[in-house]
């Protein structure tokens, strides 16, 4: 049989996973920030960690469409797992990340059977309920977690046996950014794979997916587990870089905040999670200095506007602007 050149243009599909210039520039920002804001490294580390947490929520909400108000459960599980490991002598940071991620993934896998039943409302309530139970459990088990006083005595070894966590937070910053980048890169591969495409399929049309032969429930359980692992790694990073675990790692406001950041930045694009985190935390930092009581008023106003008029968040607005500019050029 002769090979006939395909009349279908395959280039757009093939080109989709290639890195764009804007992305390279985006990843130079953390490097620039290190030199521009050397006194704010602890805030910048927090941003990287929260960015990873928002990314984990984007995997399950933005790509697979699973709504969760209790995503903090996995963040907290990872944070405590890493803290307890380091407290009892296993202070190697990378080992801590691996184990915290695995423990959070296990909790995520088990809870997926509860969460994936039923409608969006059921999911919101079940995820919220699971997080609340874990919060109270951590609160009660004071011998284990330190309760409201927090987990003390988290003693970290140097990263890769070479880089000690220093007083200025330099190691903590580079470590957080590096972990964020590695996990972002991995997530980026996953969303461009056939598995990632099937998640988009489930989000767009959950009725059709079984009719083309996709096991919807198994796919959702898999991505929920993955999202939990990511959140666990983020929690572990926070523990390791601050060498302390407060009960707040399991609190509802943290769950709500990460959802807000993701919606603000735009769901389903990975970068939206990072941009949302950056904007949210920067705004928080400056507005709460200016006006400590009322900054949430403005945050609320912005969120209402985003949800009503710019459903795809900052990323959506950016894409529209780019399209317009290109259209005119």
């Amino acid at each position, binding site marked *: 049989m002769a090979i006939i050149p395909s009349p279908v243009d395959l280039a*757009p599909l093939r080109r989709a996973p290639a890195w764009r210039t804007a992305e390279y520039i985006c990843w130079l920002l953390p490097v620039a920030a290190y030199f521009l804001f050397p006194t704010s490294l602890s805030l910048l580390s927090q941003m990287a960690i929260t960015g990873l947490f928002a990314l984990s929520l984007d995997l399950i909400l933005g790509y697979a469409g699973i709504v969760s108000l209790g995503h903090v459960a996995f963040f907290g599980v990872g944070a405590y797992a890493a803290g307890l490991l380091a407290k009892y002598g296993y202070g190697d940071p990378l080992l801590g990340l691996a184990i915290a991620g695995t423990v959070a993934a296990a909790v995520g896998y088990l809870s997926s059977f509860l969460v994936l039943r039923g409608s969006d409302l059921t999911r919101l309530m079940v995820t919220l309920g699971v997080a609340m139970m874990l919060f109270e459990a951590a609160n009660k088990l004071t011998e284990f977690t330190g309760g409201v006083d927090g987990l003390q005595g988290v003693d970290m070894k140097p990263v890769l046996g070479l880089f000690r966590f220093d007083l200025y937070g330099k190691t903590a910053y580079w470590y957080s950014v590096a972990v964020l980048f590695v996990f972002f890169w991995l997530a980026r591969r*996953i969303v461009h794979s056939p598995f990632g495409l099937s998640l988009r*399929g489930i989000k767009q049309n959950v*009725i059709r997916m079984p009719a*083309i032969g*996709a096991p919807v429930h198994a796919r959702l359980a898999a991505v929920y587990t993955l999202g939990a692992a990511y959140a666990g790694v983020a929690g572990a990073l926070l523990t390791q870089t601050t060498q302390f675990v407060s009960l707040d790692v399991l609190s509802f406001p943290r769950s709500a905040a990460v959802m807000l950041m993701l919606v603000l930045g735009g769901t389903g694009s990975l970068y939206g999670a990072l941009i949302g985190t950056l904007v949210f935390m920067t705004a928080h930092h400056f507005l709460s200095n200016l006006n400590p009581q009322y900054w949430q008023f403005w945050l609320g106003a912005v969120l209402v506007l985003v949800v009503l008029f710019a459903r795809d968040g900052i990323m959506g607005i950016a894409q529209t602007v780019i399209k317009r500019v290109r259209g005119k050029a």
Partner: protein
Amino acid sequence: MSAALQTRNLCKKFGGFSAARDVTLTIEQGARHALIGPNGAGKTTLVNLLTGFLEPTSGEVFLKGENVTRLAQHQRVKRGLARTFQINSLFADMTVLESMTLAVCERLGFGWHWWRPVGDHAAAVDEAATLLASLRLADVANEKTRNLAYGKQRLIEIALALAAGPQVLLLDEPAAGVPTSESRELFETIARLPREVTIVLIEHDMDLVFRFADRISVLVNGALLTENTPQEIARDKRVKEVYLGEALDG
């Protein structure tokens, strides 16, 4: 040789209402089998029972001789049973090529591949492209599905089912809502499908049914009234009474 698709005493009750009553049906290998009946006769319910979208209250479904009554939808698809939907059920924000590649990936068992990009799965992409070309959809392959005209979307509805590589294809009113001129083209596409593919067709346009089908089953109030060749069905008084009677009333 076993039949392509068979049901035995299939019943479905929604509360006190029986949407399928004791349906025993045999669809032969390679058949062009039409399911007709007045509105509310339970045609779509029957399709949903065959595909596993609904679970029957009682009775059994056999696919190529295998009892699939307890199998989930996606497991039946893996065994060669695909369907289209009466109301378009597409992936609106994907390009046509993406959604076709998605469907082909599922059939080829790539759905769990999480490392290599979709575009590197040449077997899936090429097959999706070939299928689109054969349905004359090549020029819209990189358009977002939601931006296409309704008639084209209706064709993609069928293309997605074909991407599952069916041996038995259930078409639930494939031409619903399509203007007559386009529906003719749509049916030419369906008529060109290889003979090995068994086709079950639900359709209201009797002209199309009688031209296309070699076997017709008539459903009334969820029960099978009769089954025969188009010629015999056309002559059957009972069919005229229930079916055409209603059409005249309506």
